[in-house]
């Protein structure tokens, strides 16, 4: 094994141990998406069912679960920013930077640990969704592809968060930046409602932003093509979602590494 791989493994393990030994963070970040799902299901569900495409079988939960998986994948990237910020404030990043290790190992180890965490949260959320009545309309392979796509997109978002967490010093400022951007973005998407219910100017934006694309791709994969806007195909949505994922990685991996190199505590 090359040194870089060992280093990434060591750092990933360290970060995963934090999840196990500081369980409050994990518990909170698990409760949040489950609460969201319950809230939207029972508060909005009744009013919304008429606006749903036939593929949802008249059940809001079928519409909601793929959308909320997309949302959680994005929210699940935020801890990358907080974790790196904390490491910098504690001087741990200084220690790592003084060691003979690959520059990328700290970031790779952090984002991989957050990927594992996200996989855990998304699986749990899917389980809760099934318990609340979500019914898969396609095959198990489609479902696995959907989970993989959600996680890949979340992983790409982790690199945006890594850049943010290293570029900004103040943890509260990061918190504000994350929620000011991520919350409105998930609301102005197809996560909770078909964009056809939005005013035209907003629908135009919502239709083209990546969280909608990923939600649609997950919906296509779990509910079938009938769940997509007219003229869209499952393959088309999945490819566009993958293009966003790769695009974000291409921009933000080098940017995060550069920010890491310059990070001075």
């Amino acid at each position, binding site marked *: 094994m090359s*040194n870089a791989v*060992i*280093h990434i493994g*060591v*750092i990933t393990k*360290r970060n995963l*141990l*934090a999840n196990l*030994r*500081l369980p409050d963070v994990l518990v909170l970040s698990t409760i949040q998406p489950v609460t969201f799902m319950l809230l939207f299901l029972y508060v909005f569900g009744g009013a919304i069912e008429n606006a749903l495409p036939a593929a949802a079988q008249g059940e809001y939960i079928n519409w909601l679960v793929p959308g909320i998986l997309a949302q959680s994948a994005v929210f699940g990237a935020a801890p990358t920013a907080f974790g790196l910020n904390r490491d910098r404030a*504690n*001087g*741990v990043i*200084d*220690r*790592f*930077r*003084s*060691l*003979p*290790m690959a520059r990328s190992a700290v970031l790779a180890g952090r984002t991989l640990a957050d990927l594992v965490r996200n996989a855990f949260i998304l699986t749990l959320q899917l389980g809760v969704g099934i318990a609340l009545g979500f019914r898969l309309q396609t095959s198990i392979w489609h479902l696995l592809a959907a989970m993989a796509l959600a996680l890949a997109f979340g992983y790409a978002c982790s690199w945006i968060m890594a850049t943010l967490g290293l570029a900004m010093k103040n943890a509260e400022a990061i918190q504000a930046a994350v929620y000011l951007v991520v919350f409105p973005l998930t609301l102005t998407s197809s996560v909770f409602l078909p964009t056809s219910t939005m005013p035209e100017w907003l629908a135009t934006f919502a239709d083209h932003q990546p969280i909608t694309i990923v939600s649609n791709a997950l919906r296509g994969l779990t509910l079938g093509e009938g769940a997509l806007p007219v003229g869209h195909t499952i393959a088309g949505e999945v490819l566009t979602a993958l293009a966003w994922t790769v695009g974000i990685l291409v921009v933000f991996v080098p940017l995060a590494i550069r920010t890491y190199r310059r990070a*001075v505590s």
Partner: protein
Amino acid sequence: MSNAIISVEHLLKAYGEVKALDGLSLDIERGVIFALLGPNGAGKTTLIRILATLLRADGGTAHVAGYDVRRNPAEVRRRIGLAGQYAAVDDYLTGRENTEMTGRLYGLPRRQARARAGEVLERLHLADAADRQVKTYSGGMRRRIDLAASLVGEPDILFLDEPTTGVDPASRRDIWGLIHDLVDGGTTVLLTTQYLEEADQLADRIAVIDHGRLVSEGTAEQLKARTGGSVLELSVPDDQRDSAVAILGGVDGGHATYDTHRGTLVLPARRGANTLREALQRLDGAGIRPDDIGLHQPTLDDVFLHLTGRAPAPSALAERTMV
């Protein structure tokens, strides 16, 4: 200097208007304990961070183990260990996990990392606590774990930024003993300290820096000798302090400085008893009666005061009461 393992030439680093390093030059020989001494904000941490490849200088050059820190940071990192001013350890890991992890990051195979971690923990008297999470440790134990992590890779050069700040006197002696052992084993140690007796007892050579510049460099004895033959120390009533400072100005070509910690005025006394006599005559003429006056051999406190115009940090070792 051929034997210099650390060599710094005209280093510059500015933060906006503040010149943290202002043309600092320094050579450090292999196998010594070298102490950086200076008041708060002198630039000690900045220098250590540049040498440890964490920070880029704005100008000048620095070589560590023969490698330019800017051009060849990877080679430098293979040979250094760093314990920063604040302990950089993970609270939720045990002491052993922290140390082992750093060993792995130095490139040691798992088994060797475990063995080295065990040795280092033993040496720092942390073996009993090694399997507890660091969040249960005292401040002194945290520092020692941080030190353990910096040692586990067996570095040639060790940077210690205030290694004993916030450490109780017993642990401090432990750390001093360890540093001595390391140097016997061939390691070069560059440390910063606020405690003059630490520099005095531990360091082979001392550099006093202030405002990012080298003020003086040498052994403790050389520094003391440079202050002049002996030192005149006197205490006067508070309301007469300023006039006393003014009156004593120019005695022996030096000037009196108020030491805020000792609560006394300090003046170089190159002519010994003659300086004392002249000072007393001048004070008498101005109607100032010192409560106490005496000559003594210069201590590092006097050197520090003389060179930086500021009193050193209060000592944690000496049981000195401050009024």
